[in-house]
C-alpha cells in the first residue's frame, strides 16, 4: 500500500502542464518498463504500453485503458513595469483558488523558478473589489524580480507554471490525500499498479490491452484522439478523477459522488453517453468492492474523442471522486484509488463475459 501511495506522490508532484508532459512521461516509462516491453510514444507525446493477446492475435480486439498525464496550469503572457508577471490559465481554473498560490515556473535552461500570485491587501480594496471575484487578467505572479528587465531575464513569455503544493496524507486513518494534479496522476497511478499486478497475476487473454497515457486533455484538444484512431479499440475505459461536491451543506442532488465509496462510473457527461451495458457489467461487482454511479451530468473527458474515433467504441468512465478539482489542493480518498484498480482487474479477468453482452 505504501508503495502505491509513494507512486501517487511522485506522479502528482511532477511538472506536467498540458503540452509539456515530458517529466511525467519519463516517470511512467521508468515505472512500467520492467513489466512491459512494447512501449512507444507518438508525435503528440502520448505514451502507449501494449500488452498483446496471448491467443488469436490476428483477430484480437483491443481494450484501451486510458489516463491523461497533463495537469492544469498557467502560462506567462507578459510583464508589468515593476517586474511582476502577467499570466493566463492552461485548462480551466476557478479564480477563487488562484490568489496567493505558490507556483513553479519551468523557465529557460530547464530552471524551475518559484513564484507567488500576489494579492492586493484587503485593507486597500474598495468595497466593490472586496465583494467580487478578481479576474485572472488582474492577477500577477511575483518572482521577486526588482524590475521588468530582471523579470525578462529570468522568465520568457510562453513559459509554463504549475501550482506548488505538497503531497499530504491526512484524515481519519490516513484515508485522504491532498496534492495538486491528482487529476489525472491518480488515473496514471491506477494504470501503473494494474500493469504491475497483471505481470504477477497473469490472465490468459484473447484480447490486447493498450495502456495509454495521453497528453493535452485539459486543453480539450487531446492526444487521446490520435491514439484511439491508431488503435481502433473495441472497448475503452477512461480512468480519471471527477469533480464532486460531497461537502457538508451541499444538497444531495448536487453532490455528484461520495469519497470513500469507490470509483464513480458515469452514465453520461457533457460530451459522451456511456455504454450502458458496460456500466451495468461493472455494477455487478458492487458486493465485492466499493463502486458507485456518478449522479450528475457534468464535465467531460477523453471519452469524448475516443468513442467516436474510427467506427466507434464502447466506453466507460471510471473516476476517483475528487474534491476541489483543478486547485492546488485536490482531495481524493485512498480507498477509491485502490478500489478502481480492483475493478479494472476484474474487467480484464472477465472480459470475455463482457464481450458476450448478455447482462
Amino acid at each position, binding site marked *: 500500500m505504501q508503495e502505491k501511495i509513494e507512486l501517487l506522490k511522485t506522479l502528482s508532484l511532477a511538472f506536467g502542464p498540458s503540452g509539456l508532459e515530458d517529466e511525467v512521461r519519463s516517470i511512467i516509462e521508468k515505472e512500467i518498463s520492467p513489466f512491459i516491453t512494447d512501449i512507444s510514444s507518438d508525435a503528440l507525446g502520448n505514451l502507449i504500453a501494449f500488452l498483446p493477446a496471448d491467443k488469436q492475435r490476428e483477430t484480437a480486439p483491443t481494450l484501451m485503458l486510458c489516463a491523461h498525464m497533463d495537469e492544469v496550469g498557467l502560462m506567462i503572457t507578459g510583464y508589468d513595469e515593476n517586474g511582476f508577471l502577467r499570466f493566463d490559465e492552461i485548462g480551466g481554473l*476557478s479564480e*477563487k483558488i488562484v490568489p496567493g498560490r505558490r507556483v513553479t515556473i519551468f523557465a529557460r535552461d530547464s530552471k524551475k523558478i518559484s513564484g507567488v500570485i500576489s*494579492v492586493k491587501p484587503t485593507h486597500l480594496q474598495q468595497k466593490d473589489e472586496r465583494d467580487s471575484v478578481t479576474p485572472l487578467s488582474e492577477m500577477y505572479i511575483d518572482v521577486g524580480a526588482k524590475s521588468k528587465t530582471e523579470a525578462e531575464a529570468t522568465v520568457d513569455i510562453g513559459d509554463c507554471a504549475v501550482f506548488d503544493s505538497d503531497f499530504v496524507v*491526512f484524515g481519519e486513518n490516513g484515508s485522504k490525500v491532498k496534492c495538486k494534479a491528482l487529476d489525472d496522476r491518480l488515473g496514471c497511478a491506477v494504470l501503473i499498479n494494474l500493469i504491475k499486478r497483471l505481470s504477477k497475476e497473469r490472465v490468459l487473454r484473447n484480447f490486447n490491452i493498450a495502456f495509454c497515457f495521453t497528453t493535452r486533455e485539459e486543453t480539450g484538444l487531446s492526444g487521446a484522439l490520435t491514439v484511439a484512431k491508431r488503435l481502433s479499440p473495441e472497448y475503452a475505459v477512461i480512468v480519471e478523477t471527477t469533480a464532486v461536491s460531497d461537502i457538508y451543506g451541499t444538497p444531495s442532488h448536487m453532490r455528484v459522488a461520495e469519497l470513500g465509496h469507490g470509483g464513480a462510473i458515469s452514465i453520461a457527461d457533457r460530451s459522451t453517453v456511456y455504454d450502458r451495458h458496460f456500466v451495468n457489467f461493472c455494477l455487478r461487482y458492487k458486493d465485492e468492492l466499493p463502486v458507485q454511479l456518478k449522479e450528475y451530468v457534468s464535465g467531460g473527458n477523453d471519452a469524448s474523442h475516443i468513442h467516436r474515433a474510427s467506427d466507434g467504441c464502447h466506453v466507460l468512465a471510471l473516476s476517483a471522486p475528487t474534491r476541489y478539482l*483543478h*486547485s*492546488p489542493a485536490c482531495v481524493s480518498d485512498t480507498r477509491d484509488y485502490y478500489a478502481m484498480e480492483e475493478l479494472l482487474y476484474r474487467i480484464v479477468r472477465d472480459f470475455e463475459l463482457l464481450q458476450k453482452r448478455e447482462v
Partner: protein
Amino acid sequence: MENIKNYIEELCSIMTVSGFEYRNKEKILKLGEKIFDEATTDKVGSYLFVKRSKKENAPRILIDAHIDEIGFVVSEICDGGFLKFSSVGGLDAHVLQGCEVTVYGKQEIFGIITSTPPHLLTNETKNKLEKPEELYIDTGYSKASLENIVSVGSPVSFCEKCISLSNDILCGHGFDNKVSCASALDAISGVSAEELAFDVYLLFSCREEYGGFVGAQTGADRAKADLALSLDVNFARAPKIDETLSLKMGEGYSVSLSAVTSRKFTKKIIELSKRSNLPYQTVAEPNNVGTNGNVLGLSNFGIPCVDLGIPLGSMHTFSETVSLYDCKSLSRLLSAIIRDASLASEVCNARKN
C-alpha cells in the same frame, strides 16, 4: 541574514492566533532565553523581555512588535468531518478557498478550506465570492472522531510552507508581524549589556489583529518606558496599489511621519539612519499609523513614540512576502538606537521636562 531567516521560520512555526498567544508560552519565552535578563507574560497574553544596561540611570526604551497573527476559530462541528469557522482578524475572502490549515485541538489536524470546482459552478455562482461563513474546513474525519479531538473555540491557523523567491525575498504566512519580532530579536541578541545605552523592554504584544490595542496598552503601562518604538509591517508596492500608500520592497524599512507619533524623535531616528548609512523610506500617515503606534505614546503619563515598519506584500494572506534585506536593515537600525548614548540622553532630558 541567515539568523533573521531562522528567527522568522521559528516564529512562524509557533501558532499565535490572536487571543491564543498564551498557548505556546514555553516556546515563546524560550526565544528570549540567552538574550534577556527577564522574560514574563501578563494577564492578557503579551510577553515582556527585559535586558538591562550596565549604565546607571539608563532610560527605558520600549520596543513593541505584536506577536499575534490572523486566523480562525471553530464555530461548529458538522457531519462528514467539516468544521464551520469564524475569522479572527481581517481575513480576505479572496484567499480562503482551497487553503491548507492546521486545527489545534487535543492534537493538530490538517484541513482544507472548501471550494466549489469550476465544473460545478453555474453562471450565477461563478462570479459570486463566498463569505467565510459559507465555507468549511475539510478534515477527512468522521464527526464522531472529530468531536473527541477538537471543540468549538479551537484555534485554526494557515499552514502553507515558507518558500524563497529571488533577491532574498521570503514568502509565507504570519509574516505580519513575526518579521518584526524576528528583526528585534536579531538586533538585541547582537548587543551586549555593556554596549546598551538603554534598558531594553521588548514587548511581544498580543491581540493587535483582534483590534482594540489591548496587548499594547497593558504591556506599555507595565513597562513604564521613556521612549517607545512600534514595529509592524507596511504595504509593499505591487500592481494596482497606490504609490502614496505603499513602499518599495528591498529598499529598507519605513519611518512613519504622523500626527500621532513624536515628530522630534522620528527626525532623530531618521538622522541616525543617515549617519549609519541605513536604507530607509518615509511614509506619510497623518491621522493613524494603523498599528500599536497609535496608543503606545499614551501609556502611563505619555511618552514619545516612533513608528517603524517593514514593507510586506499580500498582507493578511497565507502568502505574505518580505525582503530579508529590509528585515536586516531594521535590525541594524534597532541595534544602533539601543547603543546610541546621545539619543538616550535626549530621552532623559525629555523625561525631566
